[in-house]
């Protein structure tokens, strides 16, 4: 339905459509005619509305067309609207719609103002060296952070909306001349094809973009740090920002990404190599250590050095549970404590630590329910998992599977799980990019930034696996 010349009729229809107490219908006089400003009270900057929209209209020559009238207001972002539904959508998006009696159509002025939190250090990706700003929930602020780093015309931002009710803004960012255009097209098509009520967080978008819905492994990268997002985009990935979420998404995702942190590039590469190797080792330990310990106790005692074996024998004397049940029980308690510590109020945290570590751990050992080596193994595995926080969901599940198989069939079960994982990960592709590149398929050039990393000034090429259009990112002087 189009916006007609009769202001009263338009007002009536809009009131029926926007039947909510926080939608304000403000009547005023524009020149010699009656006018109506429609806006949502909670998301409109009234000062800007008054100064930049209503005040200029008061003295305007209302005999002009709506298009010309729109130009008289000083607000930066103004667009004409012709349909009632379009006007209602603009109001819900935070714009103020102005209708003037006797004029067909109206215009929407962008005077929205949301309360946003200040830019702060991202809590999930802390770094000693490097920038301390992180994304927040406002897409506009996040885009400004990206723009601050990338002052280039090559940065392309395409926005779209998803969510039947939420109409969440999504910005797809790519770098012209680097990003593979077919990838951008594929992502846009995938997002367009989705019909969903609302998108409260970018994790929804990442799930929409998953190519294998039942996979245990994540398929879309995420970060809270603008510097990480920029660097990933400069390698050939696309970046996605979702309004209302502080997590930016990156595609295509490689498994190695989560073993790389922003700080690795800011500190000495010798140190970075050490911590990357430690992360890989820690993830291996977190997944396989409980299973290996149980398998060794049940099926392969010869694997354990004699002195350690004697310690274990002394500590498990009189324990009523089998090694696999004991470890399962401990891991279960650890997962419960972990879940509780995330959900409960922070001021109860100290009590939880006391209950968890002292009461449960110490008492269980003293009561002879679990052995000390088992608690040690569980603690080691539990701590190790957080060296790569992005993989905790996957690794904690894998740990239970490995434990189950190890307790049932022993070491060969672990070997088969490893073989299965190797086969699965090697055969997996994510938007046409091998998931475990640069190791399978082996891409020698990309090994410069794998588990081993070269100095940042010695990485002249972008990762080949990502199929960037412009392969080179560093040039020697004079070239």
């Amino acid at each position, binding site marked *: 339905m189009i916006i007609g010349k009769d202001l009263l009729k338009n007002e009536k229809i809009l009131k029926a459509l926007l039947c909510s107490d926080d939608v304000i219908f403000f009547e005023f006089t524009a020149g010699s005619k009656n006018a109506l400003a429609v806006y949502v009270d909670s998301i409109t900057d009234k000062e800007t509305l008054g100064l930049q929209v209503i005040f200029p209209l008061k003295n305007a020559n209302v005999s002009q067309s709506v298009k010309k009238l729109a130009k008289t207001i000083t607000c930066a972002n103004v667009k004409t609207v012709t349909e009632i539904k379009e006007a209602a959508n603009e109001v819900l998006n935070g714009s103020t719609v102005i209708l003037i009696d006797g004029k067909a159509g109206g215009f929407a002025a962008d005077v929205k103002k949301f309360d946003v939190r200040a830019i702060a250090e991202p809590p999930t990706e802390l770094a000693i060296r490097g920038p301390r700003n992180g994304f927040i929930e406002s897409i506009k602020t996040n885009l400004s952070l990206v723009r601050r780093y990338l002052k280039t015309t090559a940065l392309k931002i395409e926005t779209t909306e998803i969510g039947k009710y939420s109409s969440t803004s999504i910005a797809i960012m790519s770098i012209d001349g680097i990003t593979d255009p077919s990838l951008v097209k594929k992502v846009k098509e995938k997002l367009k094809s989705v019909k969903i009520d609302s998108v409260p967080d970018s994790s929804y978008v990442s799930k929409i973009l998953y190519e294998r819905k039942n996979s245990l492994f994540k398929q879309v990268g995420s970060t809270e740090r603008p510097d990480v997002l920029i660097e990933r985009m400069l390698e050939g990935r696309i970046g996605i920002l979702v309004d209302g979420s502080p997590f930016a998404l990156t595609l295509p995702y490689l498994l190695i990404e989560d073993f790389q942190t922003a700080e690795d590039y800011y500190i000495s590469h010798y140190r970075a190599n050490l911590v990357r190797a430690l992360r890989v080792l820690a993830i291996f330990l977190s997944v396989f250590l409980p299973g290996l310990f149980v398998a060794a106790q049940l*099926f*392969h*005692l*010869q*694997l*354990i*050095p*004699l002195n*350690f074996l004697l310690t274990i024998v002394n500590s498990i004397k009189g324990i009523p549970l089998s090694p696999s049940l004991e470890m399962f029980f401990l891991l279960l308690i650890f997962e419960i404590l972990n879940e509780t510590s995330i959900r409960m109020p922070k001021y109860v945290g100290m009590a939880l630590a006391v209950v968890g570590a002292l009461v449960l751990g110490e008492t269980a050992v003293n009561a002879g329910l679990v052995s000390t080596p088992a608690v040690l193994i569980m603690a080691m595995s539990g701590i190790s998992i957080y060296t790569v926080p992005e993989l905790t969901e996957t690794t904690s599940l894998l740990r239970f599977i490995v434990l189950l*198989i190890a307790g*049932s*069939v*022993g*070491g*060969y*079960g*672990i*070997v*088969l799980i*490893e*073989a*299965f994982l*190797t*086969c*699965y990960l*090697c*055969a997996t*592709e994510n938007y*046409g*990019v*091998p998931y*475990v*590149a640069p*190791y*399978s*398929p*082996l*891409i020698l050039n990309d090994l410069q930034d794998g588990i081993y990393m070269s100095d940042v000034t010695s990485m002249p090429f972008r990762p*080949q*696996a990502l*199929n960037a259009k412009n392969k080179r990112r560093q040039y020697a002087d004079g070239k």
Partner: protein
Amino acid sequence: MPTENKICVRQICFMILSCCLIGKILVAPALGARYASEGLWISFLINFCADGAFVFFVLKLSDKFPNKTFFDILKNAFGKVFAKIIYFFLFVFLLFKAFIPIVEQKNYIEIALYETSPSVMTFALYFLFSSFFCYKGLKAVARCSDIVVWASSLGIIILLALSIPLTDLTNLLPIIGVPFTKILDGAKNTFVWYFDGVYILLLIGNFKPEKAYKRKIMLSYAGMALITIIYSVILYGEFGALTERQYFSPIQMGKSNVALSNVGRIDYIAGFIFAFVDAFAISLPLVFASYSIQKVFEFKNKLYPVLTVNGALLISLFVAHDYFIEIFRFLSKKAIWGYWAIAYAMPLIVATAALVKRRKPQ
């Protein structure tokens, strides 16, 4: 871009250096020593020369028919039905070829890696993995080779580092002291672990022929031969006349090293690494068998050939397990002629005929 569907030459080289290598060092050295004693390395050399010659022929064939699979070559020369018949024979051969290594792996797992006899289900789980591996196909074989090669290298390095100090190479003297008939016996009885040329035959047309690819593949084959021979020489050097009793040599070789008394049986790590690599190695014939039968029957569902091949092996493993020695004797002594006929003679004859037929119109 590395994501193209075709396999790289490097991946084939890695497959040879990992899966093909590990398959030959679990039981074959002990068996070779039984027949050829200190001349076992010459037996292996003979086997490698024979199989290597076939690999060379296959590479020449791929040179003559660039970007054509063996199936395409046969189809173009003699028609689709003929190509299907040949592939069916190859499928049967690959099933038989898979049987001995699988039983060998089963025994290795159950006898060598477990202190108490594990349940039947322990090894049956392997077929879940092999089915998945077959389902993923040739590309997965190639991709996994990129990872598995490092594991096999690590396993070999650990074992050789532990066993070299215990080796007495004089055990192998005199070098030419063993009668040639015994050496030939050793070669014949261990040949069931060879026939790697068949994998290359089924891979031609599926990989990107790059510069000097024949040389690279032949060099990796020679590298595998060299490592296997070095391994068997060190094994014989360590155990001498007792080598023939060292079945599952990976966990026998390093166990006498004094370092183990301090740090525990770290040689078991190599044992488990070998089990990991061997899981891929023994699945190779199954993957290629699935590939062959898919070509023959052109199943619409990729799962059917996988289930056919793995189901057949699983059933035969449990039915025939108690008669393994008899079956092994039959396969390695009598049926070996059939192996040679299908794996070598048949492809050689039909490929040569295809070459001749292609030349005629010119």
